[in-house]
């Protein structure tokens, strides 16, 4: 049972961290919105899915790649990857802002009815995934190999591949940029002000709609970046991939403490590792069960996640 785990421990760890970094970025999408609106953005999984298509559209339609194309090298490689990343983020960011505008804004103006918002979000995610299903005729879409997956080094039996390295470094960098943005920029401060006290923030002259749109945009950009890495690593997407990835990322956000940006980071990495370890030890079929049991245990001892919600509202 544990032979694979022991035998391949470092390889599993590397894979888990790489997967975890993708979760981190999607979790950021959930956590940003939750921090400000105290609401699960159920459509975030589909925003991610649209992000993956951004990368595909960029490579296919802008650079003319198809399934039989050769991988790119040097400056061209950097250019293609950069444009793909940009396209993924743009697709997802736009989708996120649209979701906010169509599914949430009106309800928010009417006051707080969390469940109506949740159902509206669920409806919106159905719309998003169905539109993509019709556009792709329900078929999986492959991405050509743009980045050659060279094994760079092998340490303790763990292969560090180029795509793994790029994912960890770039996703980490994007995370840090967004985290700094929320911490330091004027807009970021406004976002945090709203998340602490909406009414007070309004009184301070903060334009609530602009802040919320920005929050969705930032969350969408992070989620979109995750879409790019997903396509680069797995070279595949389909209209229904959002659900599984979204659920895992959301779980990660909750484990870390939803609404807490650092929590999203640790939650995401922890989930990536837990998933890979559990698959190796118990069999891949039990990975979700393991994750949910971990989740329940975490919540029983830390009812608002490992790092807690950014703002504790509990007052009695």
């Amino acid at each position: 049972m544990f032979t694979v785990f022991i035998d391949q421990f470092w390889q599993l760890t590397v894979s888990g961290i790489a997967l975890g970094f993708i979760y981190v970025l999607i979790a950021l999408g959930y956590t940003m919105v939750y921090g400000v609106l105290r609401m699960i953005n159920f459509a975030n999984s589909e925003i991610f899915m649209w992000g993956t298509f951004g990368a595909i559209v960029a490579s296919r339609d802008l650079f003319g790649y198809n399934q039989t194309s050769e991988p790119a090298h040097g400056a061209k490689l950097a250019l293609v990857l950069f444009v793909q990343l940009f396209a993924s983020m743009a697709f997802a960011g736009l989708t996120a802002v649209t979701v906010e505008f169509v599914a949430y804004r009106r309800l928010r103006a009417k006051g707080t009815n969390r469940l109506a918002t949740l159902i509206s979000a669920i409806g919106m995610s159905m719309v998003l995934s169905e539109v993509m299903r019709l556009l792709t005729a329900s078929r999986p879409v492959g991405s050509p190999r743009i980045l050659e997956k060279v094994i760079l080094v092998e340490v303790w039996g763990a292969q560090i591949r180029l795509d793994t390295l790029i994912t960890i470094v770039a996703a980490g960098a994007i995370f840090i940029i967004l985290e700094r943005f929320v911490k330091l920029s004027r807009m970021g401060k406004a976002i945090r002000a709203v998340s602490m006290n909406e009414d007070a923030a309004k009184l301070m002259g903060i334009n609530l709609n602009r802040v919320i749109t920005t929050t969705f945009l930032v969350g969408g950009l992070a989620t979109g970046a995750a879409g790019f890495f997903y396509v680069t690593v797995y070279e595949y997407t389909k209209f229904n991939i959002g659900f599984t990835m979204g659920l895992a990322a959301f779980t990660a956000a909750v484990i870390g403490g939803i609404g807490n940006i650092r929590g999203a980071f640790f939650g995401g990495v922890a989930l990536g590792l837990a998933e890979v370890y559990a698959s190796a030890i118990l069999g891949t079929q039990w990975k979700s069960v393991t994750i949910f049991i971990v989740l329940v245990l975490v919540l029983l001892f830390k009812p608002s996640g490992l790092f807690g919600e950014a703002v504790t509202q509990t007052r009695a």
Partner: protein
Amino acid sequence: MKNFNLRDFGAGIWERSNRYQRIAIVLLVITLAALLPFAGASFLATPVAAYDAVLVYPVAIFVLMSLGLNIVVGKSGMLDLGYVAFFAIGAYTNGLLSMHTGLNTWEIMPIGIGAAMFAGVLLGIPTLRLRGDYLAIVTLGFGEIIRIVALNVSWTNGPNGISGIQMPPPILGKEFALDDQKLFFWVVLVMILLTIWMIRRLTVRRPGRAWEAIRQDEDAAELMGVPTLKYKIWSFTLGAAIGGAAGVLYAAKNLFISPEMFTLNVSILILACVVFGGIGNIWGVILGGAILGYLPDRIRFISDARLLVFGLVLVVVMNFRPDGLLPRKKREKALIKKGANA
């Protein structure tokens, strides 16, 4: 009539009626519902799928499950995203018992309900201390766990599912038939009526007040002496019981069950029924279950874009009627009694 709305209109009629008129109204409504399966030739007809079968599942069983989930989400304010778990437990209880024993549907029913309630208590005790969205994700996880277990252990036949479940034995000499599901619809209708009776009984008395207080302000409720955890577990368990009953019926109607029937989508769909119709209001929830159960089959002619339209309907209705089609009571008794229309 400036602020006409259907809910208050209906409530108004009810408030103004005397005992005999009320009995007449109830009988009339029940009769109309019981006659529904005969309306198959009207505009209600469903393309492709058989109308009487659609009435049983999804429509009637969705209504039943929505009523059950409404106790949890609507009455006591706990967001449960794993309601399908209890449905699955009921269905699998029926499947396994009818495979291994000679018990019939009605004998299995109490066992299925009991199993679902037991699971409800088991899940409820550790998790119902959690609030809001944390509870939501934990229940969601529970629903997935049940499905994954059913998929991966051998005694449930794994992904192959359980086939050959017995049809219920005849009732009052009338046989259940595959090509005519009226009898089955009436059975589910009776279950729905029982559930409505139960909910109405409970809501006007102590449990209803406790749930309502918990929903509105859990801390205040506990400080006013409401044993909140106990009533939350009761609410959860009653919801589970109804979900389990629906599961037993579903397995008996379907004759075949497999894990892929019990995905998260079912939980979400039932929650959508509750919120769409009018959370907290029995009549709203019934309407929601009926419409959302029925609509996808009614609009099969737009086959490919069916789910797209369904999603759009959810978004539009929620945006224009956030409290659902028939929202929970908002007006005060005194005003209705006077028949005033402010």
